[in-house]
């Protein structure tokens, strides 16, 4: 992706925006970029706990907005990987503390003065102020969708709103797909979701207990675990960096022929 400032969004809550931000952000850093992840869910911040950095938050985004600290003081360095930083949201303020102009200024300074290669902005759920502020500074977007009715519908709304903001580099991450259900015809396939939403794919992440297990202890799966979801997040990071990484395993497992193979003891 050309975009250096990328918003992670979905419309619907609970589909994996924060998990995606943490895992893709960390994977981008692991693959050589200087990355900052920004939590814009003011009042309901969670990126800090998902990354296991909650104990180190001193200043937050609103403190920077309101001049109570320098931008660099609010950047929390993640020591587990080179060049990964967190800018936390305020937990005590509300979404009205956000300001599109200030958000744009901060993101510009992160890129121009602090030399970040990538700024990943975790958007709150919904389509109002919080989302609008998160999107205001973005040049590109990762839309996270689960293959179920409410999430797909909301994703379509969000895609329309991103277009209205003239954010055109918008890529889709299908999260929490369950290959066994897809195989039975009880879950939308990747191609179904793409056909309905009409935007380009950048990642398919299977439902994976490893994510929850990592998050429980404040680890980031894309840095530590050898799981399918972890591989998927690393592949997304590589695709963002322009590598041509083929989509694997899921389709193979869900396919009719591999099903036959399995039945007859092959594959």
């Amino acid at each position, binding site marked *: 992706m050309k975009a250096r400032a990328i918003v992670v969004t979905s419309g619907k809550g609970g589909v994996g925006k924060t998990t995606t931000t943490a895992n893709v952000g960390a994977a981008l850093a692991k693959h050589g970029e200087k990355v900052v992840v920004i939590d814009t869910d003011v009042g309901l911040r969670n990126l800090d706990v998902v990354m296991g950095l909650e104990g180190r938050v001193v200043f937050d985004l609103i403190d920077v907005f309101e001049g109570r600290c320098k931008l660099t003081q609010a950047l929390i360095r993640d020591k587990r990987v080179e060049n990964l930083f967190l800018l936390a949201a305020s937990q005590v303020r509300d979404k009205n503390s956000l300001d599109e102009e200030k958000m744009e200024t901060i993101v510009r300074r992160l890129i121009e003065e602090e030399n970040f290669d990538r700024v990943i902005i975790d958007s709150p759920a919904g389509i109002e102020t919080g989302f609008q502020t998160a999107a205001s500074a973005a040049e590109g977007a990762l839309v996270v969708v689960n293959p179920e009715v409410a999430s*797909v*519908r909301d994703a379509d709304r969000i895609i329309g709103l991103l277009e209205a903001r003239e954010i055109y580099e918008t890529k889709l991450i299908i999260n929490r797909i369950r290959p066994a259900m897809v195989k039975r015809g009880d879950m939308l396939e990747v191609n179904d979701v793409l056909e309905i939403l009409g935007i380009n794919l950048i990642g398919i992440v299977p439902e994976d207990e490893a994510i929850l297990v990592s998050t429980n202890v404040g680890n980031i799966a894309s840095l530590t675990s050898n799981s399918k979801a972890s591989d998927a997040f690393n592949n997304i990071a590589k695709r963002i960096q322009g590598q041509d990484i083929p989509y694997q395993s899921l389709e193979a497992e869900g396919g009719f022929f591999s099903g036959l193979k399995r039945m007859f003891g092959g594959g």
Partner: protein
Amino acid sequence: MWFFNRKKTKDVLKERLKVVITYDRAQMSPGQMEELKAELHKVITRFFPDENNKEINVDIEHSDNSIRVVANVPNGRVPTNTD
């Protein structure tokens, strides 16, 4: 085998999503669509009282980059040579 005849639930979902997203994109509800049909029917009947207006068909069409509401109004018959 039974599962060859079973309608996949994901196909039902896909159709439902296509319909609901089309209405969302058109910023119109299915109820409004019904109202529009009824109104159109009244107006068209005023202009063409003799036609069989039951055939009026209003639909939302959805292509890659546009949404259009299409009303199809049969207006008169072309005489056909039945020799």
